[in-house]
Structures are given as structure tokens and as C-alpha cells.
């Protein structure tokens, strides 16, 4: 891999800039095109939904979605134009497979936490979640602590959050099967 910021005299200025020099042509703008493309589809879907709306209230969302689609199209066209001229782009580099897995697993963990908290209640779910999720993150960064530390941090955090939200603010935290 060429040294960061040296190839062709181009300067990668973002924190992720080192990935920039790996790619050429349309690949270079893959993220920009993907992002704008997804947003274009989102705006198009939202515009399509306005067709079923009451005529009195659809003008504004139609204006917004049309403007969004037009600008996304401009963004895609700009990316294609720039890719042909190899103009540097400042978007984060591509995520590795490991990073995608990490992001998906973290979201899945949060999702499971929300589902389980309704069954097991706040105390048990939060305690287990913090201990398990901390251990999971420890594995990814290869920085392990003693198992007791995970449980102690989980117990302490659960207690503090319970006192703040449950007692001080009187938020009815979910009660489960046990507590």
C-alpha cells in the first residue's frame, strides 16, 4: 500500500484518508454514490407515499422530497464526474468485514436488551447486558479484566442508574418476572 498522502501528490486529510489511495475510478466514490443513492430511494419512497396523502397537507413533503431527490441526483452525478477526473474525495474509508460485524452485533445487542427488559425487568437485564456487552467489547479490543470487575461494574452501574431514574426521577423502570 502506498504511503499515506504521497501517491500522485494527493493529500488525504480525513482520519480515514489512508483508505483513499487504495481505490481508483468509481470505487473511489463508492460510499458517496451509495449514500446518495440510498437517500435518493428514501426520498423517492417518501414522495410516492405523498400521492396517497390529503391534498391539503402534501405540498410541503412533496417539495422536500423533490428537492432531496434532485440534490441526491446532483451528488451522484458529481461523484461520477469527479471519479473520471480523479478528484480527491473526503469520505471515510470502507469498513472492514470485522467492523460491519461489530456494528451489527452491537445493534442486535441493544435490540435484544430492549426486548428482554420487558420480560426480565430492568435490574436483571441491565446487569447482564452491561457485564456481557463489556466482555464482548473487551474481546474486540483484546483488553481483558477479571470476571469480577465486569460484574462489579455492571452491578454498580445498574444501581446508580436505578437510583437516578427509578428513585430520584420516579421513572417506572420495567419490572420483570423476578424484580
Amino acid at each position: 500500500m502506498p504511503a499515506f498522502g504521497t501517491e500522485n501528490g494527493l493529500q488525504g486529510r480525513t482520519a480515514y484518508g489512508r483508505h483513499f489511495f487504495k481505490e481508483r475510478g468509481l470505487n473511489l466514490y463508492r460510499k458517496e454514490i451509495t449514500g446518495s443513492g440510498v437517500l435518493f430511494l428514501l426520498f423517492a419512497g417518501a414522495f410516492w407515499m405523498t400521492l396517497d396523502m390529503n391534498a391539503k397537507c402534501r405540498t410541503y413533503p412533496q417539495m422536500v422530497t423533490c428537492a432531496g431527490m434532485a440534490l441526491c441526483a446532483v451528488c451522484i452525478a458529481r461523484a461520477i464526474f469527479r471519479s473520471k477526473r480523479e478528484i480527491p474525495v473526503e469520505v471515510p474509508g470502507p469498513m472492514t468485514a470485522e467492523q460491519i460485524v461489530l456494528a451489527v452485533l452491537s445493534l442486535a445487542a441493544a435490540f435484544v436488551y430492549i426486548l428482554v427488559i420487558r420480560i426480565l425487568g430492568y435490574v436483571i437485564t441491565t446487569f447482564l447486558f452491561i457485564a456481557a456487552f463489556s466482555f464482548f467489547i473487551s474481546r474486540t479490543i483484546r483488553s481483558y479484566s477479571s470476571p469480577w470487575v465486569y460484574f462489579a461494574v455492571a452491578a454498580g452501574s445498574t444501581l446508580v442508574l436505578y437510583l437516578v431514574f427509578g428513585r430520584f426521577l420516579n421513572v417506572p423502570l420495567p419490572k420483570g418476572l423476578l424484580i
Partner: protein
Amino acid sequence: MLSNILMGITAIFHPLALLTVLGGTIFGICVGALPGLSATMGVAILIPLSYGMDPVMGLSLLAGVYCGANYGGSISAILVNTPGTPAAAATGWDGHPMAQNGHGKEALVEACVASHWGGQISSLALLLIAPPLAAFSLRFGPQENFMLGVFGLTIIASLSGKDMLKGIIGGIFGLLLGSVGMDPQYGIARYTFGQMGLITGLPTVPTLIGLYSISQILSMVVEKAATADIGETLRSVNKYKVSVRDLFRNLKAYLACGALGTFIGMVPAAGGSIAAFMGYDLSKRLSKTPEEFGKGCRDGIAGPESANNGVVCGSMIPMMTLGIPGNAVSAIMMGALMLHGLTPGNDLFTAKAHITYPYIIAYFVANLLMLLCGLIGAEHFAKVNRIPHQYLVSVILVLTVIGAFAVNNSYVNVFIMLAIGVIGYFLRCVGFDMSPIVLGFILGPIAEKGWMRTLIINGNDLGAAVSSYFTRPICIVLLAISILSIVAPMIARARNRKKAAGA
């Protein structure tokens, strides 16, 4: 006004209120000192907590967090040359060399004192300028409100960093998020998918938490780095006895740069970073030893720190009076005010004065407490960087989930927060900034309401509605400023490109 100020002082000097501001300030300093976290995120995750409290207490807590986080960024900038917040970058230019030369404690003291003075100057400006400006806003009709919304949206051009097109697309996406729920004029549901939870629109707090916190947490997990290694630097912090003289050492620079920061804060989208860089330049001009700048001199810390803390209350002035949030934190603060039933404008300083004035006084108190905390042990706050990454991420994730749930004890809010967080993370990954989205989300409904009312006043005649804008002087001025706020950044970018090409 004097009676309101006295009432504000009385309310804030209640022991519980003082304790709340202190708690917020300490939390803010810790958040600011962590390079992975921002003031915006700190305020966003504490909004649900503030919602459960009395409005005065809740808003004072947030005021403490905002002040503390803005100052806290300087701690890691000085000790590890990693600014905790973007606005603290200029502080590191002289702060870090001072720490390297064994004067870390003096640098921390200087940053703390300068932040305090900058904050106090801007709090004073908020107290004196905001009420008359809010009274002026009484002259605003639907046309002016629409133009204000448009002006706020044009700030996106400045907020969007290097890529204006992406910023504007982000802003439009924010407008789309803001159009979910009943339309503001006829009450007809849009984009609700039959869900009752969406009838009143996307809930402000879970949406903001999702955009800022969830996407930030995912970034922290994926990039595997949130804290900085401070072990070595902490050992190099010298023993330095703080004296009264330290409080007034660079008074001229503190006051001048604080005033500059306040002014810049009032200009929508200018922000803390610009203020800090301009403050650095101004303090260099005011200094007797400008040649020492960059090598590790206290004057080089005084300017940027007082200027970037001047922005705090400066940015509150247009938000509280005209409803224009100039930066991401003030947009979130606006959401917090609305959550407590407070609408920006003259009402804040009349009907709701019993909440607003204590809130403003809380900024004075927060700055004072920040000074005390910083003088007592800024280096101890830096130790938050020792919190292992894995625990920090886990606890923040739980805090965001419980926070979103606590807003109205609804699981729907939590799922909305997660969904918005995923979208926010995706957009962040493909190079979109969150600030324009937040601005669009907050200002969209205001602009739409103004537009719809203008249409109705003019008998649904589009031509008459448009021409009515040009018969009102305030609208014309706002239109001119809006055009300027779009064109000025474009010119600045073109100039920068020219400069870069010439270099």
C-alpha cells in the same frame, strides 16, 4: 428586569439547584475531557434526566453540562494534545507545549480561568441582550416566522463543513424527519404508518439521542478507541500554587476574547472552533510577547479558551429570542426548552420568566463552579480517560436506552431512537454531518407553519403569499441575510480552494 434577575438568583442559590448545576458541570467537564465524546452528546443524553426534574433544575443541569463540556475539552488538548472538543484544538497549540515543558498545571489553570471569564462575559450578554431582542420578536407575523425558519436553514451552508451539497441534502433529510406526524395547520397525519406513537411527529429527544449518541456509540465500538493514553502526561503535571493573581493575569485578553466569542456565538453556525482560532489571533495581538506563541505561553491559552466559552451563551441568544439555533448544542437545548413547555420568543422573558431567568443565572453559577472545579483539580478530571473503553460504551448505551424510555415511558421511543441511530450512523459512514439534519428537523416544522399560515392569510393564493414577503421590511432583511449566509461560505470556500491551488 431587575426583579426577574433577583428572582433568578434566589431560585438558583437554593442548595438543591446549586448541587444540580455542580453535578451538571462536573459531568460536562468529564464528557469534554474524553476525546470521543462531545458537548452535544453530553447534553443529548442528559435531556431525559432533565425532563423528569423541575424545569429550573433540569435546564440548570443542562447549562452546567454545556459550560463544563466546553471547558473540559481543553484538559485533554493540553495534556495529550487531543482536543476533547473541536473548539479546544487551538488551546493545544500552546497548552501542550507548556505541559511538555513541565508547566502542565499552569496551562490547566490558565485554561480554566480564561474559560470562566469568557463564560461570564457571554452570560452577561445573554442576560442583557436577550430580553430586548425577544421583545422585538413580537413584531413577527407568520411571514417573518417563515423567513426566520428559512434563515435558520440557510445556516446549513455554513454548518456543512467542506461539502455544502451533502450538508444541504442532510438538512433536507432533517426536514423530511420533521414532516412526520400531523401537519401543523390541518392536523392530517403524514408518514405515520398507522402508528399512534408517530401522530405527534418523531419525538424530539429520542431522535436527537439517536442521531448523536447511538451513531457515536457505534463509531466508538467500530473504531475501538474512545479514550486517550494519559498515564505519562499526568506524571508530568507540575506542582503549582494557584494565587489570586492567576485570576486576573490576562484580564484584557479574557474580556476581549470573551466578547469576541460571544459575538461569534450570536452569528448562527460560526461556532466554537472559529471563535477559538480568532481568539488565539486576538490574544496574540494583545500580548506583550507574541513571539512566544506556539512555543508554550499562557497568553496563547487565554485567547482561544475565553473565546470558545464565550460562544456558549452567545449561541443561546438567537435561539432563545428568535428560535434560531446557531449550532448543534443550541438546537438540542431548544429541544430541551420545548420539552419543558417553553417556546423561544418573548414569552420566555415574560410569562415564563420564573424559569428563564434562573436558567440564565445558572450559566453564571456554572461558570463559577467550573472555575472552582478546574482550580481544585483539572488534572483529576483528565483521569476519566482511564475508564476502560468497554465499560464506557456499555454504560452509555444503557443510559441512552433508559433515557429514551424515560421521556414518556414508551418502548416506541426506544425503537425510534435505535432506528434513527442506525440511519445516523449510516449517514455518518458515508460522509454526512449530523448538525444539518438536526437543524432541518427542528426548524422544518416552524418554517412550514409560517408558510401555511401565510398562504391561508392570503386566501391560498400562491402569488399573493409570495409577494406579501416583499412588503414587510423585516422579511426583506431576513431574506438578504439568508442569501448572504449561503453566498458567504461559498465565496470563502472558493477563496480557500484558490489559495490551496496557489500554494
